[in-house]
């Protein structure tokens, strides 16, 4: 057994704290917006120029002029503000965004992240990922633990070109929650039914366990 995508998103949501400014990457990280723990309030930042992103609109509210960084139609939450791209990235690089939750292709135990290109394939661009990975106070990565062919994506060192170095604090995969500790990953939690042996076998870096 391991976590479903929804359970992974719920577990990532549990990382959020009241008052956090949060940027969600495209794909699975976007789902985390649905799992903000009860009783806390966070503000979602979208790097195209919106702080205070609300839920997706109802069909009769669709507005082509309100989109998120994934180009999806969204809404403005109460207290939202709008700004240009230069100011948006000043927020990101300037350390004003508390948490970035990004997708990953590979994470190394020293916190290096690869999520923007696979050599030999068409390269579509890094968008805001390099600024976000390095600029947020805390960077969480959500990804699968292994590739479709079973290769580990939690590595001793990256095999793909990096997005940013030493930036990832924590990785949430379908197997559990892992911190990047420099010369090893520290497993904080395993999904129900996942054994330590399985986690070790599917991790290419060194894996240690808390407690």
């Amino acid at each position, binding site marked *: 057994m391991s976590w479903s995508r929804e359970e992974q998103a719920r577990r990532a949501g549990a990382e959020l704290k009241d008052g956090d400014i949060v940027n969600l990457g495209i794909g699975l990280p976007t789902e985390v917006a649905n799992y903000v723990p009860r009783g806390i309030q966070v503000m979602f930042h979208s790097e195209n120029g919106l702080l205070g992103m609300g839920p997706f609109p109802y069909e009769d509210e*669709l507005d*082509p002029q309100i989109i998120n960084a994934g*180009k999806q139609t969204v809404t403005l939450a109460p207290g939202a503000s709008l700004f240009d791209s230069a100011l948006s990235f000043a927020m990101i690089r300037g350390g004003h965004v508390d948490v970035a939750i990004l997708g990953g292709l590979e994470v190394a135990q020293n916190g290096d992240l690869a999520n923007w290109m696979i050599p030999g394939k068409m390269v579509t661009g890094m968008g805001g990922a390099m600024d976000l990975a390095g600029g947020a106070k805390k960077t969480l990565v959500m990804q699968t633990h292994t590739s479709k062919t079973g290769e580990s994506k939690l590595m001793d060192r990256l095999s793909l070109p990096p997005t940013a170095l030493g930036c990832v604090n924590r990785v949430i995969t379908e197997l559990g929650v892992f911190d990047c500790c420099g010369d090893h990953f520290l497993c904080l939690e395993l999904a129900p039914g996942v054994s330590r042996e399985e986690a070790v076998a599917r991790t290419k870096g060194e894996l240690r366990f808390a407690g």
Partner: protein
Amino acid sequence: MNKVGTLEQALARVRDGSTIMMGGFGLCGIPENLVRALAQSGQKNLTIISNNAGVDSAGIGLLIKSGQVRKMISSYIGENKMLEARVISGEIDVELNPQGTLAERIRCGGAGIAAFFTPTGVGTLVAEGKEVREFDGRLYVMERALRAEVAFVKAYQADHHGNLVYRKTTRNFNPVMATAADFVVAEVEEIVPAGSLATENIVTPSVFVDMVIKGEQYEKRIEKRVYREKSGAGA
């Protein structure tokens, strides 16, 4: 002062080989009337500086399709499939920048700053061939300012002087691009007399704008139409 011009006057500023900045994020906040007219104009070998490259059938995609683009300077071009073939064939060069670096290069280009040091890209392909320097124990890569001969930006309203206001998230790269080109054309939905915009709400002051044109036809295509059901299910 009256800066109101026509599409034809705006396009006359573009020559073969021109470098043009175009505002917009995806298809949101793009100067769509100017882009459509440029796609009919025949100027070639253009370098386009824009965050994205549109989609195959809209925005900058029209210029890719018409074979007018020689080079794109962007941060993400994944939504334009046609571009891929033209990059592989060598017809179009692409220079990819981290999005924040692209925005800051343009900001600096408009602000008289020649270059800057950013931590973004250190240790990656982006830093190759660039100076890397340590400040207070952290590494930064030097990035150069970016300017263009012409900028096409999109705003909601302009007054006759060229003061601009924007709607919602259509702002994106438009205000910085308006500062960083030799000739700046603002395409707007409404042109109003000077004095009728709320002064506090003006985002781009008139000094940056050389010409204002009124866009006659807006599609405002939604790239990814996502909505939730009234029942509250789904999201």
